[in-house]
């Protein structure tokens, strides 16, 4: 890699920091926007005024806003996301406990999505606007229109219940059981996400195949896997990578829903329960986590593009 590209990557990392700061401010403000007195709510309905005052001191609510923010920042940096509403657990522990579930489901979803979208995009771009291409496009449009949770229910009704091959809910203890529990949720989610990747990839492959350099390569007798590897994929991959951020957003949103449908004890369910029980720290902590993930993936995408596309330089 040339030094130019290192510089670009460095620049992008630096550019992300203000974004992260704004995100932190936004998430921090969430708590401040809650109606009512947080100290009273944390202390409980039967607390006395003195006890509430103590809690208020504990929560640092008597200090100025900037001080509170810095307090919040330093706690975040130390991994302290506060306690759950019932005061029993550290939010960070809860997250750590439930994260593997979500991570597994997301991983399998990504695999499924790639397995669906990439071959189909290559198939569709083989003969643009041909019968197969049109058919796939119609299916893609369809896939996006089906709500993820309903797709999950359909899968339950059509696959899980009749065959019993997949559990209708819950997680497992062994890894094998967990894989099986993740399959249908991941499938439902990837059916919603794959059409987007498919559309983008198909579009960029077609554009590459229409390009002069592709024709020139064929004129030089380059064919088969060499042609696809060096001329098509390397160039066609860039727009989909740019999509990565949007896809991550959709995936993270979708996993919340899918965990609810299949009763998976992951971060999504934690979040929803937290919202229902008015557990501020949980919701705040998870919001922060998910958002940082999106920002991180965005950055990763830009770095990837810088690696793949030599035209990306310090402007």
């Amino acid at each position: 890699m040339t030094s130019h590209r290192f510089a670009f990557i460095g620049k992008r990392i630096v550019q992300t920091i203000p974004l992260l700061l704004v995100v932190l401010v936004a998430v921090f403000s969430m708590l401040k926007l809650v109606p009512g007195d947080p100290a009273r709510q944390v202390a409980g309905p039967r607390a006395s005024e003195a006890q509430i005052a103590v809690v208020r001191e504990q929560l640092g609510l008597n200090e100025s806003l900037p001080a509170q923010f810095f307090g919040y920042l330093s706690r975040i940096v130390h991994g302290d996301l506060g306690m759950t509403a019932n005061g029993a657990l550290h939010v960070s522990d809860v997250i750590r406990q439930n994260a593997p579930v979500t991570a597994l489901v997301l991983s399998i979803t990504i695999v499924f999505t790639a397995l669906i979208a990439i071959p189909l995009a290559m198939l569709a771009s083989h003969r643009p606007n041909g019968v197969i291409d049109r058919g796939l496009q119609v299916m893609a449009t369809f896939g996006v229109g089906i709500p993820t949770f309903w797709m999950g229910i359909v899968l339950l009704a059509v696959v899980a219940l009749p065959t019993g091959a997949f559990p209708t809910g819950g997680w497992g203890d062994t890894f094998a059981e967990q894989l099986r529990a993740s399959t249908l949720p991941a499938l439902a989610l990837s059916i919603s996400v794959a059409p987007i990747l498919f559309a983008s990839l198909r579009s960029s492959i077609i554009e590459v195949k229409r390009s002069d350099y592709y024709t020139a390569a064929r004129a030089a007798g380059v064919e088969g896997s060499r042609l696809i590897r060096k001329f098509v994929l390397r160039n066609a991959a860039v727009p989909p990578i740019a999509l990565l951020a949007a896809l991550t957003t959709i995936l993270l949103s979708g996993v919340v829903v899918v965990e609810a449908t299949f009763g998976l004890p992951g971060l999504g369910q934690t979040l929803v329960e937290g919202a229902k029980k008015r557990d501020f720290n949980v919701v705040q902590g998870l919001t922060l986590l998910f958002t940082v993930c999106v920002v991180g993936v965005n950055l990763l995408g830009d770095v990837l593009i810088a690696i793949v596309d030599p035209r990306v330089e310090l402007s």
Partner: protein
Amino acid sequence: MTEQALMEVMTAAANPRRGASRLRLLDPALIGAVLIAALIVLALVAPMVSGHDPALNNLAQRLQPPSGQHWFGTDQFGRDLFTRVFVAARIDLLLGLLGALIPAVIGIGLGCAAGYFGRWVGTIVLRLADVIQSFPNYILVIALVLLLGPGPKSFLVGAAISAWVTYARLVRGVVLRIRSNDYIAAAQAAGLGHRRVLTRHVLPNALPQAIVYGASDLVLSLGFLCSLSYLGLGVQPPAIEWGQIIAEGQTFLRTQWWISIAPGLAIIYVGIAVRLIAVGMERRTTE
């Protein structure tokens, strides 16, 4: 970029091949409009048509399969499903529409401003867009539910905060492109105020693309609303809503699957109809 690729796929999917000139006569926008109109009509008159009250419990008749008396069967409280599904359409269509319309207005406005006034107005809007897009939709709305409580309010506020971004980017792009056109400069040279230039010249060019995207957004908005209600964070009982019905029916999926399936089909129905309208309109704007 996602939206553009998707739009391309959508329109191509609906456009007939070059030789099939007959299909061209069927205007998708018309078909779509008819489908929606039919749904609206049924939504308004469903209780009268079916003769059932959507809220009436009738435990003797609970969990009946579709029959002559109950066209879609009944749910676990013996309520007629047909009526419930179509009455739910009122809320779903209305909120779904608002969930796309409000962000559209905000987004088009901000996008126009960003493209037209340029410089730091544009930069502010873009940075704001970046920040907002970092928050996954559902997460944002769930956080809002925490603050505002469950219900349509959270959904609409969430949509207003997060969904305007694509409209803004789209419109800004259009505006930037036509800003370099001479007739904008001519209008400004002629002394027309900003507002005039914007409404007369800029907006008519920016709107078509925004509307076409808006159709796609409407489908997403509807899906979002239903998902939220499914989670229990959206429309609350006793209001009737599709996602809610689906959630209630999930327990009975093994034997009385129609409860959960019917509303889903309704959602897909609306999705197809709206897409057809979008395709028809896109065809018009490119001719």
